[in-house]
């Protein structure tokens, strides 16, 4: 059974993105071990002169390192990824690179009907940057619109279509994780790029 880390891209207690990940965790409990990981509470990112990381980051790095893949569910604030998620990704790519070559699946939930399409596009672009170099599952946009009405009292997704699509995407993701293990060149390549970047930053 594979292990995944699920990250709600929010620091809001009542977030429907967290609810979606909780549903995913329970819904696929017999297929994978999914652990939710919070990313709020970190200080606003800045380049610490000594490259030190704030408390909590090391633990996050270890969890992602140990996982077979990551599922990120992002809200959309002001047409983009929430600052709190951008912030966590900044720390998680500052001298440490747990996302390098890590398979990532992106989901998103929003109150309105647009369902985080722009935030997801921005998140893909971010995860594709050299410092993160994640392996994002292609062609797999998953959005839950009108998310306040989307769940029943037990936290289950009400709409059957949405559940079916999730089942399909999750099965693909498991395959994607396996396939990714065989993409040797890309992994080496990404790590080389990252090493070069880190060196450049050191020399600054």
């Amino acid at each position, binding site marked *: 059974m594979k292990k995944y880390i699920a990250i709600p891209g929010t*620091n*809001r207690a009542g977030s429907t993105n967290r609810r979606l990940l909780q549903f995913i965790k329970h819904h696929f409990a017999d297929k994978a071990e999914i652990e939710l990981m919070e990313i709020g509470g970190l*200080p606003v990112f*800045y380049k610490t002169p000594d490259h030190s990381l704030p408390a909590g980051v090391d633990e996050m790095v270890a969890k992602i390192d140990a996982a077979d893949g990551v599922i990120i569910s992002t809200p959309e604030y*002001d047409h983009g*990824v*929430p*600052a709190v998620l951008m912030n966590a990704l900044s720390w998680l790519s500052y001298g440490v690179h747990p996302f390098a070559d890590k398979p990532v699946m992106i989901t998103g939930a929003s109150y309105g009907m647009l369902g985080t399409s722009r935030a997801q596009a921005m998140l893909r672009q971010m*995860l594709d940057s050299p410092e993160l170099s994640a392996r994002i599952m292609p062609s797999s946009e998953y959005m839950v619109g009108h998310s306040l009405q989307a769940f029943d009292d037990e936290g289950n997704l009400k709409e059957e279509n949405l559940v079916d699509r999730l089942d399909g995407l999750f099965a693909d993701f498991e395959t994607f994780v396996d396939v990714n293990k065989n993409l040797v060149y890309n992994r080496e390549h990404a790590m080389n790029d990252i090493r070069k970047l880190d060196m450049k930053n050191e020399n*600054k």
Partner: protein
Amino acid sequence: MKLVGIVGSIAEDSYNRKLMMYIANRFNNLADIEVLSIKDVPMFSEDDDQTNSMAVQYLKHRIEAADGVIMATPEHNHTTTAALKSTIEWLSYKIHPLQDKPVLVIGASYFTQGSSRAQLDLREILEAPGVNALVMPGNEFLLGNVRDAFDENDNLKDGGTVKRLGDLLAQFTKWVTVLKALKGPEAPDAWKSEDLTASGKTDTTIEGVEMEDPKWVDKAAEKTQAASGKDYVKLDSGVLTVDQINWFLKSIPAELTFVDDNNQFIYYNHKNPDTKMWAKRRPDQTGNPMSAVHPDVRNVHDHVKQVIHNLRTGKMDLFQLAEPVDKKNVKWVVNNYQAMHDEDGNFRGVNEIVLDFWPIVKKYLEMTGQKLVDDPNNKVDANASASVKDDQGSAPAAPAADTGASASVSEDSAPAPEPAPSVDTGASASTKDEETPAPATPSPAPVVNTPTDTGASASVDADDAPMPEVDTNASVSVND
């Protein structure tokens, strides 16, 4: 033109800050650019609303007071920074200072890409419904390979880049001007946004003491560890002890009241009990918001709002209001509301000067051997007068010269009417504005009417005065 610069990096040695500082210094002929820091802005969180924190409020006020914003963004992970995104999230949650504000996006980066993706994302973010900024289209400015771009004095080395930046800034100031013209005149009820309850904050607001606490002065002094008694205070052209400042202010033959730019009453020169004052004040009132100082009877609060709004937005520097003259040539008490500004020309509050002009007039007559006689042609009631800055472009003349009673103190300082009306009718007159070409901006409908004959000074009671707009003809007692 006043602009603020916001740098997306909070790193100590940021090349984007260096670029912004360079722009502010090199192009101060085009605009007055104040560089703001977002270092103290907390991470955005809906569950922990810090809209009212000092850092957020400071940005809000600075942005609101500016004609436009320049944002310089680095690129982190193919996008703009979390610090800048967090700031914009605060500025689009409960408050919306960037709404309709012209914004120029620029960026610098270590590599050849020069923040192109970050800039695109930032543009999209700024155009989100809650933000609604007016980002200048086109005109992308990317500074790549920044490590080699500056010389040892932090000047840009490449002449071509400097020229391009200069052109860009000129273009942006034009864009700001055009947008202002598009927006048209200020809404006639803009004064209603004046918050007499002082619920906001300014950078001098003393937090943690209830504004209406009768012991506000003592508690605020303790909170700030204020200098007192024999402590020396360095002023811009002198050094005095606090005692000396008190003696000095009390010896001025006028009642002085300090209301800060957040509409909080924070000082008066207490030399007499309230019963012996023209504008009655008690020490236990100090610290009160304006709404508590003036009772909300009749339309008093509306009038106070109008006056403050006109002073804050630079429509006037001084508003004068005479007490009714029941007996001629005995006393002539005038309330003068003088706008205060800091070194950068930002509105910092109102100095209310209540003064009996009669002894001055009397002395003048004595010393020059003259006497007052009635002018048979004059229709002036002489109760109220106000001066409106000439740069409104709409008021052709200062108060008519034949109305001796309406001598306005600020006339001296107001610039002579110019052939081309200044573009910026809202902000206080700035010589920098005059350097931008004056487009054919329709002059806004004057909210403040300077009567050419100043004859219509209305009744003292506000009750009857129709008051949808500030009509400086009508005199109303804004004192309690």
